């Protein structure tokens, strides 16, 4: 800067100003491509969806009349939508509890480096590498009411065959079984990774402090991996709310809407019935739910979770 200051004053001002202006511009120029893509494929559709949720449209017509809150009102009176909402909540709650409830004990149990544990780790992880569509197809065979393996096993115990995917009381739980089976191995590996990062000396200190296995688990292991547990919970809530493939392949929301979730409802309204207005309104509600969850996630993450040696 000193060389600039020594120059004749007439030249200084414009040049410095120009340079400052350029410097200010550089960061914007650098993030422009990313923001362009973000705007084009995220912000714009979002705004568009917001507008559509107050409109009536069938995906083809040029005429998109504004209907105000009519779509939202209709949704709240639509029994199928309300059922989709409760299905989604049920599905999400049970799915997340199952994933967390299984992957943590499994992770603690498999957190050893012996051959048998490595084989078990690989075995429970393997469903994760299969595509969800294949998993859904396989489980349709397994859950087939007459020829499926599951009902054969059930018949060994003298029980009657279960309509895994055909009984409205059961179908939602069957879908949960399938997605948990696919997902639990992956999250077990994540739990194992988190456990591996817990300093071994903590367990040694606990052993010298005469802590029982249960107290070691609840007072040392669980607090040490809370960040991971929160991560697993929130990621799975988001996953569960978005579940679509298994439903589309295995039940198409049936029987009698017992497996229609919010996402599947949006798909049905928008792309089977071509009622874009209500579909967009449902989409906005879904977005709202996800935003609330994300907000709590970050608040929890910032406050409650801390692990530092």
């Amino acid at each position, binding site marked *: 800067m000193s060389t600039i200051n020594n120059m004749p004053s007439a030249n200084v001002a414009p040049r410095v100003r120009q340079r400052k202006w350029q410097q200010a511009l550089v960061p914007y120029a650098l993030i422009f491509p990313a923001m362009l893509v973000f705007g084009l494929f995220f912000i714009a559709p979002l705004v568009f969806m917001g507008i559509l949720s107050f409109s009536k449209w069938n995906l083809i017509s040029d005429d998109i009349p504004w209907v105000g809150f009519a779509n939202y009102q209709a949704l709240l009176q639509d029994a199928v939508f309300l059922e989709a909402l409760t299905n989604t909540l049920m599905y999400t709650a049970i799915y997340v509890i199952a994933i967390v409830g299984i992957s943590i004990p499994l992770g603690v149990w498999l957190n050893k480096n012996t051959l048998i544990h490595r084989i078990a780790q690989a075995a429970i992880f393997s469903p994760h590498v299969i595509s969800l569509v294949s998993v859904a197809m396989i489980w349709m065979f397994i859950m087939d009411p007459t020829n499926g393996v599951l009902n054969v096993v059930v018949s060994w115990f003298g029980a009657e065959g279960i309509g895994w995917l055909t009984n409205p009381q059961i179908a939602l739980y069957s879908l949960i079984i399938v997605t948990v089976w696919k997902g639990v191995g992956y999250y077990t590996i994540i739990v194992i990774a988190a456990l591996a990062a817990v300093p071994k000396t903590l367990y040694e*200190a606990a052993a*010298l*402090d005469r802590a029982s296995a249960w*107290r070691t688990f609840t007072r040392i292991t669980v607090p040490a991996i809370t960040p991971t547990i929160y991560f697993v919970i929130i990621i799975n809530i988001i996953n569960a709310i978005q579940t679509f493939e298994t439903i589309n392949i295995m039940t198409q929301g049936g029987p009698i809407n017992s497996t229609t979730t919010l996402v599947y409802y949006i798909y049905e309204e928008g792309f089977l019935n071509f009622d874009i207005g209500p579909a967009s309104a449902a989409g906005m509600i879904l977005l709202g739910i996800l935003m609330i969850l994300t907000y709590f996630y970050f608040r929890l993450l910032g406050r409650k979770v801390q692990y530092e040696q």
Partner: protein
Amino acid sequence: MADVKLVNISKDYDQKVRKKKQPTKKAVEDINFVIPSGSFTVIVGPSGCGKSTTLRMIAGLEAVTEGEVWIGDRIVNDVKPGDRNIAMVFQNYALYPTMTVYKNISFGLENIGVPKKEIDARVQQVATLVNLSAYLDRKPHQLSGGQRQRVALARAIVKRPDLYIFDEPLSNLDAKLRAEMRNELINMHKELQTTFIYVTHDQVEAMSMADQIILLNEGNVMQIGSPMELYHRPQNIFVATFMGTPAMNILPVTEVISLVHQTVKPGESIGYRPEKARLSEQPNDDFFWVKSEIVTTELLGSETLYRVKNKFGEQHVKLTEPFISTARDVYVFVKHEDLYFFDENGERLEGVNTHEHHQQYALR
């Protein structure tokens, strides 16, 4: 209060591997020693000497491959760490990161069902002892290194164990704090009147705190004794060069040297401590002397450290008064009774140098 006794202890980490392949070195090999009740015993040695392994076997954190660990009148090989009535302070403190200082200290008492009132009284008492009363609600990560160290100590003290075990507890602290903590540990030992076993690689810590030092190297015991005993009567070159800074000078002998009391044969070595040597411009036949030149001079304030070169190689000489000379050649000289002699295997030649002033340090 109980003696700790190790009988023919070995630790082999690769036991399963070894059966198939050629033998490799055991981490600890056939060591024996007794740690008297109420002593402050420091196990010292260079890294990889097996000192931590030995300590962890006493604590029960590491299985014993061969031999017996005695605490008091029972063999504890198969006793769980928690049932040995010992407390350990870890190098990284191993504080429970999600618990407050209070909980860290009380955890061990809660586990054995001490009544709440008593826990509270004991925690408060110990917290006062280590100056932590104001920090009981903090989490470990809100404390400084020295404070964490105190929590670790408090957690040990509150259990009132028979035996305290320290695994390099001061190595994460800065030099000043380390010196302070050394003093505190010495005081703590006096107050508690309990056995301390302390592992370190730092011979200064060993010298300043121990009343018994066990010096290990490569899984074997080199020497057991009081700090002054190890310093003045090292059994071999390893002990001689490990204890004291700068290390004892070792002069390899290549031709027969006749001295006042004895003759030194080729292959043997002569040793002298840097602080026992003097420099002069003239040789003096009342002393053992070597013609040398000064290579470097380090002024350390209270003392001056010279590096000298002669026919035996390079050595250190430490003087309290600086030696000023313009002469090219200087003479290093050492009293005959300050010389040490080692045989070709590095074992000290006993009986050659048994000057009285060495003996008076044999027992402190």
